[in-house]
């Protein structure tokens, strides 16, 4: 048992993650062609606009289920909304933010774009602390809007007129996943601007602009879109009570800052936080690069059902980084 544990702790989890992401990408982007439908409440961008999708991203049904009159909330519509959220919660409670780091096809595409940048030897960007703190709020604003707009399409909010149906589903209209993921099945039908109404034109043009920013942003900044992703904000609800956790043994931390340096999103608290044990933050995607880069024995630890499954070790650190001399 000790040998197996040592093997896992000293292994290169990034390599494992790379192949795991490919498998998940195939499943979520092409699974539909093999009649695979995992769930309609997935906490990952398995886009239903992609005909080959092996499931459905929860944000789509959530927006649809919120698109109903107030009276339906106390009826079957409310029950379905609750049922949907419970299914989503189950997924979130088990794998927490690992959905983002290991399973999200849009995240995988961003990682591939990062690899391309590395090959081209172009320097990556990092946000300053103030910019980071400001930008991370965008995902909560998007989450709020994707909840409030469908309600406003079916109901009058604050005695205002109902929103145009052309704005619906608001997040999907601007989500780069809607445009990018179908491209992998040869479907370019989502690249368009709808000129039928002003709202439709604005929303579809915004979708194109966001997709353009997504491509360029991901090229210069690792996991660029994850900082703005409302799914990440939604999953954060469960990360404190989830079965899969990232724990920090504060007593062993020397604040060397390796964990912050390797973090794709750029979370500083992971190095600075010396109070909390569970250190999964709202922007964290549980890629576990921080655990790999930590040189302190047992300082960072991943647990599943409180059973440690992967932890930082000195040997692992030297094997992974120092021997290859590549902390990037």
């Amino acid at each position, binding site marked *: 048992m000790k040998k197996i544990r040592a093997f896992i702790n000293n292994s290169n989890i990034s390599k494992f993650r790379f192949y795991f992401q490919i498998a998940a990408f195939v499943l979520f982007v092409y699974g539909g062609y093999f009649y695979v439908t995992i769930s309609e409440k997935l906490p990952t961008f398995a886009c239903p606009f992609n005909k080959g999708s092996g499931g459905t991203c929860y944000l789509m049904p959530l927006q649809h289920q919120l698109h109903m009159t107030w009276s339906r909330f106390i009826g079957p*519509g409310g029950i379905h909304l609750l049922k949907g959220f419970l299914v989503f919660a189950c997924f979130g409670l088990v794998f927490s933010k690992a959905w983002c780091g290991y399973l999200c096809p849009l995240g995988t595409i961003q990682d591939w774009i990062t690899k391309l940048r590395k090959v081209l030897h172009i320097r990556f960007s990092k946000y300053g602390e103030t910019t980071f703190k400001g930008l991370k709020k965008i995902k909560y604003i998007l989450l709020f809007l994707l909840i409030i707009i469908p309600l406003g399409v079916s109901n009058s909010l604050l005695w205002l007129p109902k929103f145009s149906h052309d704005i619906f589903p608001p997040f999907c209209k601007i989500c780069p996943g809607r445009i990018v993921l179908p491209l992998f099945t040869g479907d370019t039908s989502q690249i368009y601007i709808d000129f*039928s109404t002003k709202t439709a034109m604005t929303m579809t043009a915004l979708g194109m602009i966001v997709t353009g920013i997504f491509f360029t942003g991901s090229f210069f900044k690792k996991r660029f879109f994850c900082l703005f992703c409302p799914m990440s904000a939604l999953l954060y609800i469960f990360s404190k009570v989830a079965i899969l956790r990232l724990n920090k043994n504060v007593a062993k931390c020397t604040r060397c800052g390796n964990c912050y340096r390797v973090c794709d999103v750029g979370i500083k608290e992971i190095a600075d936080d010396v109070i909390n044990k569970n250190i999964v933050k709202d922007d964290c995607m549980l890629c576990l690069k921080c655990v790999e880069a930590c040189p302190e024995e047992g300082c960072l630890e991943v647990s599943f059902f409180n059973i440690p499954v992967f932890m930082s070790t000195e040997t692992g650190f030297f094997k992974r980084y120092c021997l290859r001399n590549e902390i990037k």
Partner: protein
Amino acid sequence: MRLKDRILIAIFLLFFAEGASASENIWLSNTPPKKISKKIRHGMHGVSFIKGNDGREKKILWIRSGSFPVESQYANCTNTKNPVIFVCSPDGKLIKGNVSHGLWGHVLTFEGNMEGFYNVYLFERFVEEETLNIVVAKAEVLSHKCSNGHAGMRKKMLHRTFNEEIPFEIVRERIPGEDFHTFLSSGDDVTFKVLLKGAPLEYSKVMLSTQKRWVNNLKTDINGGAAFQLVGDYYPRFKEINKRNIHNFLVTAEYTVKKSGSYQGIPYERIHYAGTLGGSYIPSKTMYTSYLYGLILLIFVMPAVATLIYFYREHRKRPYKEYAFREKD
């Protein structure tokens, strides 16, 4: 209008319009007459429903007679007094359907909120001029609310036929990738299959007519199929395009076979099968969307953002400065 003209029109309607109902096609439509259209609520794919006094929703179909969607009459136009109503719910159970004539016109109503397609048939059998007429008016009524979820949607899209109860029917084959949210649109190729006692029927005459009286006649192939392309029936000015403008079409199929026998004691020499199926479609997406503009915008944004990042980086660069430290200091 002069009194003389009114009398002439009344005489014409009395003799011709009433008589026409027997030879015209009977079909089920979800479009209400104009005078009550504001009182009707519409669900997915323009399905009409009303709420009863008990708060229950009732799906509603108008029984119409004619060969063209717009001109068809809303009248008491069934050929027999008591047509058979056959309604099958998405879970395969037979449910009660009612034909009534009242506030909403001559309608067929049924209750049901189950997710999926309700197969509705109005079935008549009568002998006229030594011919046994078998008339089947069919409608596929979709009941779907996204807030109810989409579990098992693919399965619910499959066709169901009722060979024993319904001897003749038209089946619209689903277009690739069709689901509850798919609307047929102009330009789509749609295949209609004609089935006689569940088996594909060859050489049956199939006619598709659209709202603006565009008509196409075909004969079914060996698989019982007749493929039509839904023509663009809607040409407004660009600024006035309504992408949700629902246009109706009507498909009719006929087949006559020489077979003698008797029905309710009346002898006949041949059997004439007539089936109808109504449907609707919306304007093609190509009318109001542009792939080119989308692509141009997407391609323009990428280098624009890259240029901004480049200049931002250049702006942040500090000029090289050399610092010298003396160990003595």
